[in-house]
């Protein structure tokens, strides 16, 4: 993965995009990078959509991943994120807000920002739209570019891979060109 597109320690990173745009694949890739280094990560799963099978295929050591299921309660998800970012030692806290991102007061966004800086954890927020505004150091938007099918005959029998691209919405203190496209195998 492009090193500029990974979550930054001590900062908030946001990935936004619609359904099937590749944001969850990007999230799993970030989690895989972290636990692959032997570090510990946590995933706050608001809508309980995390698929352990996909994560295992993405190379994630599930033993190093704390999975918090919030039963579609966004307020609980935000409170869980607030607790976890105050626990030093986690390398990455991922907050998957799903398809309904709540309104977050600016004070709460700043509270998260300063907690993240104090514990030097990377907070990655994934959703259909942005949550923390200017508190995020990096904001990315994922877009789907194409789909490849595969099969022995004229009719495809399975999904082969999906190509996505990333658009940088906000990058505090860094100059970005257009990141290259990514291929995600099914």
């Amino acid at each position, binding site marked *: 993965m492009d090193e500029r597109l990974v979550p930054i320690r001590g900062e908030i990173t946001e990935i936004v995009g619609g359904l*099937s*745009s590749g944001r969850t694949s990007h999230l799993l890739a970030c989690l895989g990078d972290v636990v692959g280094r032997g570090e510990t990560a946590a995933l706050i799963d608001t809508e309980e959509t995390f698929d352990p*099978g996909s994560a295992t295929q993405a190379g994630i050591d599930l033993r190093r991943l704390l999975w918090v299921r919030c039963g579609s309660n966004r307020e609980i998800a935000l409170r*869980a994120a607030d607790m*976890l970012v*105050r626990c030093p030692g986690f390398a990455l806290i991922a907050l998957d807000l799903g398809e309904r991102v709540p309104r977050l007061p600016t004070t709460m966004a700043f509270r998260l920002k300063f907690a993240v800086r104090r514990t030097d954890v990377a907070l990655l927020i994934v959703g259909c739209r942005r949550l923390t505004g200017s508190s995020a150091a990096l904001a990315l938007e994922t877009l789907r570019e194409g789909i490849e099918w595969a099969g022995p005959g004229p009719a495809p029998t399975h999904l082969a891979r999906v190509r996505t691209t990333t658009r940088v919405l906000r990058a505090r203190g860094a100059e970005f060109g257009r990141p290259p496209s990514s291929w995600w195998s099914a």
Partner: protein
Amino acid sequence: MSRFACVLVEHFDAAAVERCEPALRERPLAILNPSVDQPNVGRESAPTSNRNGALAARIMTTIEANAAAREQGVRPGMTETEARTRCPMLLTRPWVEEHTASARHALLEAALAVSPRIEDGGAGVAYLDTVGLERLIGDPAAIGRRLVHQVRAIGLIPRVGLAASRTAARMAAATGSGAVTVIPPGRERATLAKVPIAVLDLAPDLAATFGRWGVRTLGELAALPREGLAMRLGPPGLRAHDLALGLDRDPFRPWTPPPFWEEAQGLEWEIDSLGVLAGVLETVLERLCRRLAAVGLVADVLEVRLGLASGGHHARDVSLAYPMSEVKPMLTLAILDLEAHPPPAAVIRVAISAHPIRTQVGQGGLWQPPAPAPRDLVTVLARLAALVGADNLGSPVLVDSHRADAFTMLAFSPPTEPAASERRRRGAPQRDDIPPPPPAPRRLALRRMRPARRVQVETAGERPARVEAWLVIASAGPWRASGEWWDQQAWARDEWDVVLGDGALCRIARDRLTGHWYLDGFYD
């Protein structure tokens, strides 16, 4: 070489209370026995009516006093009024059995941390077999200092004596001028000769007999002919003679620690607020943790038992998830558990017992990745469990099955060893015959619907053509799977990957047993 040590804590009932309330240590303190009722004989204390209508007054009797109170003339056996007359600044506390029992156990455990062979000599007294300890600790004085250090760590102030016998060691502890007194081998009789006979704590009639004979010191008692003592006083006289000579006649009875560790606190008032109860829990946990730390143990489970004003008990098992001996995370976990399961009535007694285990002490590895500190992790996991429920928290583990979304949840306990890829990257030794694995693949993720949503699907032949209101733009499949046909949980399905008219790329599946279609989730 000295063979025995005696640890003596004077005025033990008062010391046990001071252990619970260290601020009392420098102030005159008397322990009162609240269970003594006597008829009212004209005192000015508030009378109460008994069942027969006669008046009776509750007289509080002093059963113990600390050194500061004794300096001002307070003695056991005095009534509270007499004690307060002699010492107007006297503080009093009722005698609580749990305080004394906890302190007694704590003293024995502290002694056990120095020697594996100890004997319970009664409240405030512990004997240790010190044979062989000189090779571990040093000379007898060093052993004594170690004992003083261990006992001070649990909140008691001891005096230690070391001698060739338990009796001589106790005499040395009781009469020595410093915290540690060592009687050299063969010097027991000479050292104890000038000690007053009162230290033997003899029966009153026997002590009176020796007083009439003019025997005032242990040396004078030891000089009496043994046969004559046996003829006139019988076995008690011989026993007193042995004590004066510093001889042990009773066998050494080794003490072993109880199977559980408990600290308790009785309360003079009822507590109906969790905030106030937290303060009491912290005090009890501090004592328990000091005991555990003194012998190098940690706890993995706490049992919190609350005595209720209604007469019942409220017991909770608090699993610590990670063995620890630190007060703050233990307190947080206990409070969170009690918040979730509050006691049904006001609390009048608190008891906490720990299941102790021994930790494996080891140095952290050079390649060990950074991870949350155990105490932080335990605390945040407990808070999260209270927030989302314990079932919704943990690490997923895939189940060995082809069934869709087959996984189970385990308690989160990240491994401490570094990941294999990280060991390679940092140059840790690797076996040459094992090729390095390829980098992690970039795989498309599935966002699962839980539970899978039933949908209406129109088909063209076998292939799906419309899902609910959306046309199917492209599709691939079927991926046929089945399993557990030998059981009542048999399943069989055809999976399709489809692109819908709104651009969503999703996985749908047809249950071949029922013919129903389900939306498994979205590729994202």
